[in-house]
């Protein structure tokens, strides 16, 4: 079967854009609902359960409420940028969706349809490029609000997202080294099991790249400003952070942007490390595009549907772990976060890339063919690294922040200085009466 082309291709693409954009917006809405329900479950309460069946229409009610709320314009705000910022926060998160394959190709009368909005040849690079645009919304909102809290939030946001961007990009390098391609569907294919095919690994990348998965997940959390990395908004410190001054729909758009980003991140984790739409232990979904554009495998509509369901379940589970983390952990402090990003994650990812590269080279030289055995060997390397990582990654070593020697020293000096000041005032007050020294001696005997 060949790929759909010509007029039907245009129609199919437009249909895909419309349908899947709608689905994405819907999933953002459901994402907020899921977050609230799961948070409620974790916190031993009910959560929204009044509007509609099991509270599902709560999101509609929220949307309506936000539309009807008063629009506020802070007098100190720069109007244009203030309005632009929410849009800039929402767009990158949603257009990332374009390059993510979410199901196996579907057959039609005119040829097969790739279940991906745009299969651009630079898929992964596109993802990294667009993901880093997300920071503009935060910076612009923080700066244009004309509020100090928003400003601090914007500053933190820009610093944080720029720093973790590096770690995020680097943690994908091992994936690309294994895939040998930056097209996203190739990465899914790589994880499918084709017996006897030496171009695929046949194992989800989470196994051969265990540590890489962890790093990508971690930096992904930081990129999306989720707890424990939600410092740009840190409601306890900065009231609302960069969106302190926003209200009504403008605020809702920020929220949508955040969840859009989050859902996309969950999907990226799924695609890169959990096989994308691949259904495990079943070779029926082994459908891929050959080099000449023809389709290998037997596409079917029901298979497309099944793989879509598999994809949604996997993405949903990853999303659920985001929620789980958020409602369990406390928040980092800003400097600790930066330390973790610059002094640990970037170094460690670099080392990781080198180790994996050497391992791949060694395995290739050893003549081991791509396949489960190859993956198992890499897994061994990862386990060793993971042990090292979690040994190093413990408290007092990396997340120490306040415990750093230089800071300890500065703190000690400050305390010493204060003691001196106090001693000076005290001795000044005491020194006034020369009599005191003698009376003190007398009374000490008396006291005994």
């Amino acid at each position: 079967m060949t790929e759909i082309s010509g007029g039907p291709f245009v129609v199919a693409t437009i249909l895909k854009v419309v349908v899947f954009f709608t689905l994405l917006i819907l999933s953002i809405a459901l994402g907020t609902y899921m977050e609230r329900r799961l948070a409620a479950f974790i916190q031993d309460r009910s959560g929204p359960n009044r509007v509609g069946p099991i509270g599902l229409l709560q999101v509609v009610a929220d949307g309506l409420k936000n539309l009807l709320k008063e629009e506020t314009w802070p007098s100190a705000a720069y109007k244009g940028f203030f309005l632009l910022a929410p849009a800039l926060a929402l767009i990158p998160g949603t257009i990332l969706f374009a390059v993510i394959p979410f199901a196996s190709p579907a057959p039609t009368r005119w040829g097969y349809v790739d279940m991906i909005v745009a299969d651009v040849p630079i898929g992964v690079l596109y993802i990294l490029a667009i993901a880093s645009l997300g920071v503009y919304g935060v910076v612009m909102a923080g700066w244009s609000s004309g509020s100090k809290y928003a400003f601090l939030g914007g500053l933190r946001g820009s610093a944080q997202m720029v720093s973790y961007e590096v770690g995020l990009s680097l943690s994908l390098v091992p994936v690309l080294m294994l895939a040998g391609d930056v097209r996203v569907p190739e990465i899914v294919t790589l994880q499918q099991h084709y017996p006897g095919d030496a171009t695929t690994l046949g194992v989800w990348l989470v196994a051969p790249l265990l540590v890489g998965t962890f790093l990508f997940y971690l930096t992904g959390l930081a990129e999306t400003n989720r707890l424990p990395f939600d410092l740009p908004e840190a409601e306890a410190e900065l009231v609302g952070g960069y969106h302190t001054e926003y209200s009504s729909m403008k605020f809702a758009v920020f929220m949508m942007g955040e969840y859009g980003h989050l859902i996309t991140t969950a999907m990226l984790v799924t695609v890169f490390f959990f096989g994308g739409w691949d259904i495990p232990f079943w070779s029926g979904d082994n459908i891929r595009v050959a080099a000449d554009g023809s389709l290998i495998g037997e596409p079917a509509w029901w298979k497309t549907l099944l793989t879509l369901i598999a994809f949604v379940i996997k993405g949903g589970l990853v999303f659920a772990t985001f929620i789980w983390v958020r409602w369990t952990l406390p928040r980092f402090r800003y400097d600790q976060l930066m330390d973790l990003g610059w002094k640990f994650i970037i170094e460690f990812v670099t080392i990781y890339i080198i180790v994996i590269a050497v391992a791949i080279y060694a395995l290739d030289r050893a003549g081991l063919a791509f396949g489960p055995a190859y993956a198992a060997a890499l897994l061994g390397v990862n386990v060793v690294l993971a042990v090292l990582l979690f040994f190093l990654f413990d408290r007092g070593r990396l997340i120490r922040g306040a415990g750093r020697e230089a800071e300890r020293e500065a703190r000690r000096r400050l305390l010493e200085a204060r003691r001196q000041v106090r001693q000076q005032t005290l001795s000044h007050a005491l020194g006034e009466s020369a009599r005191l020294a003698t009376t003190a001696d007398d009374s000490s005997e008396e006291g005994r």
Partner: protein
Amino acid sequence: MTRATADVSPQLVVGHRRDGEDPESHASVIALRGEFEDAVRRVETDAIGTAVVTVDPERAFEVLRYLYAAPGQAYDLLVDVTGVDIGGGRPIRVWYQLWSMGHGRQLRVVAELPLEKLELRSVTPLWESANWMEREVYDMFGVTFRGHPDLRRILMPENYEEGFPLRKDFPLRGRFSRSEQTRRALSRDLEDVYARAELEMAGVPLDELGMLDVPPDRRPEELVGGQDALEGKPMLLNMGPQHPATHGVLRLVLELDGERILRCTPHIGYLHTGFEKTCEYREWNQVVPYTDRMDYLAPMLYNIGYALAVESLLGIEVTPRCQVARVILSELNRLLGHLLWIGTTAIDLGAFSVFLYTFQERERIYNLHEAYTGARVTTSVTRVGGMLADFPPGWMDAAWDFVRTFPNTLAEVDRLLTRNAIWISRQQDIGAIGPEEAVSFGLTGPNLRASGVAYDVRKARPYLGYEEYDFDVPVGVHGDTYDRFLVRFEEMRQSLRILEQALDRLPDGPIDIEDYSVVLPPKSEAMGSIDSMIAHFKLVMEGIQVPAGEVWYSIEASKGELGVGLVSDGGSKPVRCRFRGPSFINLAALPFMVEGELVADVLAVNASLDIVLGEIDR
């Protein structure tokens, strides 16, 4: 017994009813008699036997300095400074309540100030804690403290023009009419009210404003080189009074270099309702509801502290059942306070779920409150001489049920937080205060114990029979935020231990004393016997008559030492009703703890101090 000097104007009689203790045998009194023969005007005891030394105001500083510095005295904790005005043009008395950790001694030094010369020398060089307390005395009584580093109004607005509210010549409703008050409040330019830090930053010459300047060497950041790295102006961040993490209407003005704090100036008084003034116009039992509203997070502790103070003035002791009941309620409320603290601390540091876990437990304690008093927060549980009622049937079982199941939640929270790497890194080494500083700042309660000073009123001066309970006082080592967390956490376990013992030993018998001049006789008796009926009538119409005298009684509240200072002239209303809220003094140490830290640490430290604005602003 006393050797009052002749130049003193007519005084309110200080109680002498407890003859057991002779103040002249107090070691400090002997020493003062020897050292300051001419400065000591009178020596008396108050209702609980604390020696009260009235001294010449001119030499009060000298006396206090001696008491602070002489090794045989070593009164290192200045617990309270407050004023007492008894009206009629008589002098204003300024109380200095002292406690010596080393010698375990209590002493009250009183300076009598004639109205025409309301001036004292500030003792802030000796005790840092005097700073805010002297400001309060200045604010409420108009006593000027020479050499005070920052003598501004503290609870009332800085441009308050009606006078000094706690003076007897100040009418309860204020000097200005309601309309005038409203007019002034509305026409006031809010921007007029600046803190010194703000004015300094704006380059306003402080002399012109008549504000005393801080000598430059008192600013620690200049000693360590201060803001060296980058040139530029520090940023002023106004945190509060409406801020999600200031635990009430607290306003902190932060001077920031990046996110590092150069200076922190707390502003309080937004919730000031003049409880102490109002209490002077209420009968003794009518004061109880006001006490709820001070520490509304652990209301019964305030109820109990107040009742104990009045009972000590009356010279009565409550029934054994009432004592144990009060211990049960005290410890339940200690848990209530600590649970709120742990929940809000967790929220400030981003761990939201813990907040809901602890609030579930708080709700269960509130259920117990409700079952007993009918109210969940404003309990007003005590009456002078007893409680509002005996425990309702089944209440003890419910309390036992709580005590048995509560440790599960405690263990859960422990697992979530205590060894969490982020939690530790957010708290360890943050806001550290050493034992000497902690004592000097007058910290009490868990905040002081976290710095390694094992001072707990329940052990130091046991009340309600606390000496018969088996419990430990946990102390910290580093005095940082994390140690304060650990100390409070352990205190909850100790409270549970006390609760178990108290629930176990609650004796049968009446809960109220049977003195019908203090507690209402039961209705059946009031209707049946003429004596009881007269007693009932007099109590309802006139209230309890408390003999003239004064007392400063303190208990261990959940946040620290709660001192209740009462002065009675023999009537049915207090002449002075002082509440030494521990949070008020604990909060004064906040700038010391946070300067040099980051913005996020302000919240961690502020949360770890466990303040409640109701008791700070009163």
